[in-house]
């Protein structure tokens, strides 16, 4: 269906690639403090950063997002609910027409909090879970974290909440549990959300052990195709589209174009998976605030320039995968205009092999507590929603009404 003859889905994609005057949504890590120490935590969370934005500063950010008409923020961390002003900020955002989705490991999601969430459509929650069994989950997220998450999910279900999410980072160890995750969600009236593991934060250290093996990527792709429309993906698997049929979603990296990250101390990065100086656009405590960073920073301007595709330009599948994920390339040491490390055509592996042993870029500040990570495997912090999430489900061929459920 078409409402205009001139505009097509591709035109809209081009508009997004050029960047919007304000993000559609953004990820906001409220704190680096976390009760867990997940081994693949994208923000290397653990200890609170003393420079964290205080309540007044956080409210000023919300005021600014309201002026920009940012529809919603994906709040994460760290564990955002450990901030004593967490609900105060959520209420403030909602009162200012900025919707809230937040990621949590469930530690503070008691019956009272669940009732609160159930009562409003402006607050959406996702519980992070990285195994459909305690064994698989706790190996990554820490002892007892499965039980905590399940209790939170049950609290939400009992409170009558609808549309809450179970958010899973797909790893080598849980990719065999996709049906079990789906059942876990279905049994509680929740929705399953699967996202891609990135070599970001502590994930840089555990990537080699956790990322999907080539055969597993195919299993995941087939499962996603079979369950199209039943599962959310944050549009994060567009690199798999080169297997054939494009997965639902916009299939576009939104970093610095339609989304970004605000970290706990006000640093603004291109995306939640890119906490590194290379992708730092500025700090919103500086004059001009968030708005000038979004509209004028050199970094974001460069991300909105036409991408050539580099080494991938000659690949027949570039149109599907768009070269994959910027953060995944960067933290594995690959050039940004080259293939994704998990390129389904194998070009990423070739490129990595050609690199040989190199010093990969290290993630930005490490907030890990000085305890050894349980070498069961990893533990993880709540995985923020978003990145490309706002656009998930958008079909570029639809003209007027393109749905993008979270």
């Amino acid at each position, binding site marked *: *269906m*078409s*409402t*205009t003859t001139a*505009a097509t889905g591709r*035109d*809209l994609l081009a*508009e997004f690639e050029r960047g*919007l*005057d*304000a993000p*559609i949504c953004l990820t906001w890590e409220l704190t680096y403090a976390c009760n867990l120490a997940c081994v693949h935590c994208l923000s290397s969370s653990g200890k609170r950063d003393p420079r964290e934005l205080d309540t007044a500063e956080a409210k000023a950010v919300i005021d600014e997002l309201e002026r920009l*008409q940012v*529809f*919603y923020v994906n709040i994460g961390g760290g564990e955002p609910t450990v901030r004593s002003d967490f609900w105060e900020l959520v209420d403030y955002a909602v009162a200012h*027409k900025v*919707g809230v*989705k937040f990621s949590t490991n469930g530690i503070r999601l008691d019956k009272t909090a669940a009732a609160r969430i159930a009562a409003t*459509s*402006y607050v*959406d929650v996702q519980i992070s879970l990285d195994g459909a069994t305690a064994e698989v989950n706790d190996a990554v997220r820490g002892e007892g974290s499965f039980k905590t998450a399940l209790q939170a999910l049950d609290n939400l279900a009992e409170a009558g909440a609808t*549309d809450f999410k179970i958010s899973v980072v797909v790893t080598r160890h849980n990719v065999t549990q996709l049906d079990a995750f789906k059942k876990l969600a279905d049994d509680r009236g929740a929705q399953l959300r699967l996202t891609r593991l990135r070599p970001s934060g502590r994930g840089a250290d555990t990537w080699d052990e956790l990322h999907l093996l080539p055969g597993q990527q195919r299993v995941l792709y087939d499962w996603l195709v079979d369950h199209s429309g039943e599962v959310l993906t944050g549009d994060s698997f567009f690199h798999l589209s080169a297997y054939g049929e494009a997965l639902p979603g916009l299939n576009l990296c939104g970093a610095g174009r339609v989304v970004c990250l605000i970290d706990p101390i006000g640093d603004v990065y291109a995306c939640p998976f890119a906490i590194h100086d290379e992708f730092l656009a500025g700090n919103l405590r500086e004059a001009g605030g968030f708005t000038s960073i979004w509209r004028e920073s050199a970094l974001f301007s460069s991300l909105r320039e036409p991408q050539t595709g580099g080494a991938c330009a000659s690949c027949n599948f570039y149109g599907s995968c768009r070269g994959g994920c910027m953060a995944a390339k960067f933290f594995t040491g690959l050039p940004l205009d080259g293939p994704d490390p998990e390129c389904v055509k194998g070009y990423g592996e070739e490129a990595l092999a050609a690199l040989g042993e190199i010093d990969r870029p290290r993630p930005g500040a490490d907030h890990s507590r000085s305890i050894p990570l349980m070498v069961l495997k990893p533990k993880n912090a709540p995985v923020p929603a978003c990145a490309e999430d*706002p*656009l998930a489900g*958008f079909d570029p061929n*639809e*003209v*007027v*009404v*393109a*749905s*993008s*459920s*979270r």
Partner: protein
Amino acid sequence: MALTAVAEETFNADSAWDLHESVSVRPERFGALLYDFRTRRLTFVKDPVLQKVIDALSTSASAREALALVKVPQEDHERYLSALTRLAETSMLTPRSQGEIT
């Protein structure tokens, strides 16, 4: 696109319509973005004229009147009404009592 029987029931072009209060609208150079906080759906209105039509609904006694107000050519009416139907089907547009201007 032909309107289905259901769609015709959903959307009457001769009655008054408003954008639902839970829908937030953001003007963009290509048209507008609509976000519905109830369904958490993002909708792309890829046409500045359609955006004007939506704006005009609140001061128009009917959807057809909104089209006239924005001076949409007659031959384009069906297209715009079908777009409004889509919005009504997802309850982003909501009926308003006849004659009441918000």
